[in-house]
């Protein structure tokens, strides 16, 4: 039955010429060999580069533990693609700075919710994400020694505060226990790192027609929550909290509802200033006073280093200056240098102009005020030389970038200590770094981060394994 087929195959085969493919076969073989070698070398290089890439993460430092205090980098940049996370090994150790914004690498799930922590004394970056538009220094806060960061959950279903230990990489969730809370936001660390001030947002009824704010002192080591204040749910309530250097008192802003405008019932754009309240650690009010318009508690570093006075930030047009007040009554204090008889303290500090706001981080041992200055966004919808609430002045749509400045006594102008790329709109600095006042030349990581290299290395190993198996199977199939 198949004899005819055999004949046809042979007759057909007889008519086939010999193909002259020797030279092309040799050329193809050599090209394939070169490509195989190149691919294998590339895969091996990827695998070999993994430790190098991972070492870019660096070893953890013990700056805080040794009391060195770390140093402020003179610039920060967007994190590299594939940067290590805050809980990855090697651990970061204490951080000098944390920052956030809308710059590349800081946006996560369409929000600027990725925060970068920078090592205390070198440019090692670690990232972590929070569930909301982060404003470092306001709702994501760095402890005084730079070892821990605290952030909220951003989830209304499970309000909690998360504390990340940058030395151990461990995270810990804390619940304030405020009844009906829908969000918990950390706003300040105590100097010893044993307490957090947390602002809870609480619905006033089951229908959640409105909310109120509860400011609490939360011991990390256990123990009851201490309620500091209850007030309206507004951008200013509990926004700025400053612990006295000895950690036994704290000052904080609580909003006061502005009087209604008599003409059309709207709130005036520049309400009278908030109330500043000073409490002890048991929540007992020590004093309180009302701020004038366009005046704010200056920031977490509002207490003078000797713990006697509070510092306020005052806006006049586009210009901001600091002044000291008596925490007992809010009256301005004029400090006199006994040696020269001239003015001392905030009166001798330079003013800052052309910014949306400033926030006082603290005081260096040399007597300079270290402040964050918020530079206006080129497309900012708001004007900043007139009345505007503080939470709008540091909002990402209004801020183009930030600078950390030193306001040195007797200097004519502020000195820039840290610069950030556009769209980095919030920064916090560890108190220890502020006090030390040291600034180091930074060399931020660029290119690809260790996580990328780790992934690439694994892909390279997998590629080599697949290649090896395929080669083995081919050899077996061809019987060579």
């Amino acid at each position, binding site marked *: 039955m198949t004899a005819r087929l055999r004949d046809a195959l042979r007759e*057909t*085969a007889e008519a*086939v010429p010999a193909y002259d493919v*020797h030279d092309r*076969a040799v050329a193809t073989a050599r090209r394939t060999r070169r490509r195989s070698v190149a691919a294998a070398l590339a895969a091996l290089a990827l695998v070999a580069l993994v430790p190098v890439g991972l070492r870019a993460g660096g070893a953890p430092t013990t700056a805080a533990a040794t009391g060195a205090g770390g140093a402020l980098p003179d610039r920060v940049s967007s994190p590299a693609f594939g940067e290590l996370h805050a809980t990855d090994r090697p651990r970061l150790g204490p951080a000098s700075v944390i920052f956030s914004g809308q710059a590349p690498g800081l946006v996560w799930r369409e929000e600027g919710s990725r925060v970068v922590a920078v090592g205390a004394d070198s440019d090692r970056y670690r990232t972590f994400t929070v569930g909301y538009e982060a404003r470092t220094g306001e709702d994501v806060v760095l402890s005084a020694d730079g070892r821990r960061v605290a952030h909220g959950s951003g989830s209304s279903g499970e309000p909690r505060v998360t504390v990340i230990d940058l030395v151990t990489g461990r995270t810990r969730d804390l619940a304030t226990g405020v009844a009906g809370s829908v969000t918990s936001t950390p706003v300040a660390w105590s100097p010893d790192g044993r307490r957090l001030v947390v602002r809870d947002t609480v619905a006033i009824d089951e229908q959640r027609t409105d909310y109120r704010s509860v400011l609490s002192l939360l011991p990390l080591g256990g123990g009851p929550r201490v309620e500091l204040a209850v007030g309206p749910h507004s951008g200013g309530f509990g926004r700025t909290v400053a612990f006295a250097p000895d950690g036994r008192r704290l000052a904080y802003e609580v909003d006061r509802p502005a009087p209604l405008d008599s003409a059309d019932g709207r709130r005036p754009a520049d309400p009278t200033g908030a109330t500043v309240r000073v409490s002890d650690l048991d929540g007992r009010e020590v004093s309180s006073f009302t701020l004038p318009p366009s005046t704010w508690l200056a920031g977490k570093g509002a207490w003078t280093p000797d713990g006697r006075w509070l510092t306020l930030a005052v806006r006049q047009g586009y210009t901001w200056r600091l002044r000291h007040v008596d925490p007992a009554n809010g009256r301005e204090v004029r400090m006199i240098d006994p040696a020269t008889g001239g003015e001392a303290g905030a009166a001798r500090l330079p003013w800052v102009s052309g910014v949306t706001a400033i926030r006082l981080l603290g005081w260096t041992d040399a007597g300079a005020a270290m402040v964050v200055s918020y530079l206006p966004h080129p497309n900012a919808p708001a004007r900043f030389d007139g009345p505007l609430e503080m939470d709008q002045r540091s909002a990402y749509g209004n801020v183009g970038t930030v600078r950390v400045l030193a306001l040195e006594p007797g200097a004519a102008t502020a000195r820039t200590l840290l610069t950030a790329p556009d769209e980095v709109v919030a920064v916090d600095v560890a108190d220890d770094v502020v006090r030390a006042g040291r600034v180091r030349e930074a060399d931020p990581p660029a290119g690809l981060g260790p996580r990328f290299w780790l992934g690439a290395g694994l892909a390279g190993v997998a590629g080599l394994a697949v290649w090896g198996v395929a080669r083995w199977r081919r050899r077996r*199939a061809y019987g060579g």
Partner: protein
Amino acid sequence: MSESFHEFVVQRSPALSRTAYLLTGDHQLAEDLLQSALARTYRHWRRIHGGDPEAYVRRAMYHQQVSWWRRRRVAERLEAVPTERPRDDHSDATALRLTLDAALRRLTPRQRAVLVLRYYEDLTEAQVAEVLGCSIGTVKRHGHDAVRRLRAIAPELVDRPAERSVR
């Protein structure tokens, strides 16, 4: 190394070319197939030249012919190749060859490989299974399908037409 490989190619090219053509049914594709198989052989020449390099080349051709990427390339190329049909003014042998060309192109690469191994190389089903790296059952199935299809496409290739046997 290169010289002995060259000698091997010179000596065995005619036979290998014939197999390559039967496997592909197209001269250009056959050249490609033989070139690829020889390139692979050249890369491993040091290891295989002491054994049976021709068997290695043939296995390489069979495997490449039925491999997925080769099938894709062949399918793309075949679309552009006009189907040759036997014409009345050809001799019997030429007509038969052209009929076979056309018929082979309508078989799957694996069916064609089984057909070539079984009826051109005269291998047993067990040997075909070993060469192709599949089971004897698979060889039987492909062989059966190939013959059945040929019978439908070109019955004269499988069963000699009655009038020809009379003539």
